[in-house]
């Protein structure tokens, strides 16, 4: 029973992180692409486990964390930057719409040739990386805990329960998330990507976070407050700030670009 609880709780943490990334990619970009990215990551994960078996623990997780963390950090900072510029009135919203429409048309023409299943490469990649990385961690947990207790089967069941439970909860909150104003959602997604990027990138580069995974509970709100503070400062020099209070990060709908 102790093995089940330990593996279940550890896998819940990993599943929450993966689900957060998938929800972010789906809500702010494209649900289909996020779904395909998730499916592709699970398929790659299944192949890795089937081919490598117990040797999977030899994959350099630190190197993977550095690469994924760096990309998430760059993506996240871009999202926050654009959300703040829009919310403070520094980004020309209508010009941006026009540019986005042009880019989307070009991208659609190229992606339809190369990647039919996932119309949004960005959303696909985000979901793919998040699920693959966290999935590998789940596999490591199952193998290490299970092998240590000589009961890999029970560890696998515990991990499966955790993943299904968290995925179901994520699916349930999908619809309410869609009603959040678009620029606010992009700001939140930027915060999440940046936070996970800092956390994973730091861990991959050898840093040890105080409190381990619990450090995310400090990193996420701290970056959010910092972003809101920068928005307030920039509104002083903005040209057309949206109405509302300090935390109002709305911009007109229709801006699909990151």
């Amino acid at each position, binding site marked *: 029973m102790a093995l089940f609880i330990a593996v279940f709780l550890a896998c819940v943490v990993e599943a929450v992180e993966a689900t957060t990334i998938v929800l972010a990619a789906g809500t702010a970009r494209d649900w289909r692409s996020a779904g395909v990215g998730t499916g592709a990551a699970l398929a790659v994960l299944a192949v890795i486990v089937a081919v490598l078996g117990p040797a999977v623990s030899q994959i350099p997780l630190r190197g993977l964390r*550095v690469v994924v*963390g*760096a*990309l998430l*950090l*760059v*993506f996240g*900072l*871009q999202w*926050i*930057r*654009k959300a*703040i*510029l829009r919310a403070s*009135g*520094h980004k020309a919203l209508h010009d941006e719409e026009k540019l986005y429409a042009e880019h989307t048309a070009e991208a659609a023409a*190229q992606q339809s040739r190369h990647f039919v299943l996932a119309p949004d*490469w*960005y959303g696909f990649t985000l979901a793919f990386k998040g699920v693959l990385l966290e999935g590998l961690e789940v596999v490591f947990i199952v193998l290490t805990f299970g092998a240590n207790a000589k009961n890999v089967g029970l560890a696998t069941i515990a991990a499966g329960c955790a993943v299904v439970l968290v995925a179901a909860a994520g699916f349930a909150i999908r619809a309410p998330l869609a009603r959040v104003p678009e620029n606010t959602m992009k700001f939140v997604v930027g915060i999440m990507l*940046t936070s996970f*990027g*800092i956390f994973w*990138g*730091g861990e*991959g*580069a*050898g*840093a*040890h*976070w*105080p409190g381990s995974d619990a*450090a995310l509970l400090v*990193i996420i709100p*701290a*970056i959010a407050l*910092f*972003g809101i503070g*920068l928005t307030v*400062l*920039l*509104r*002083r*020099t*903005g*040209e*057309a*700030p949206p109405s509302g209070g300090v935390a109002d990060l709305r911009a007109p709908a229709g801006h699909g670009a*990151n």
Partner: protein
Amino acid sequence: MSKLRAFGAFWYDFVIGDDWLVAVGVVIGLAGTYGLNQAGVTAWWLLPLLLVILLPLSLQRAVSAPLLPRRRRGQRTPPASPHTPPAN
């Protein structure tokens, strides 16, 4: 050749994005974290510190103006446009 250029431009836009400074800063931050860790120094603080420096710098580059409008004593800063509310 044009396809190769378009391919390169796609990946540059995808990975680097609007401001190359952000990508360079992230690489420097991760390398610095690794270096500090190798030297036996606690390094978790470096990436958050980098964010505190990098994001305002990138925003400032985007708006090409100081984040805090400079004021002379006894002089009110006029709004940047008719739509801009007073600073306070």
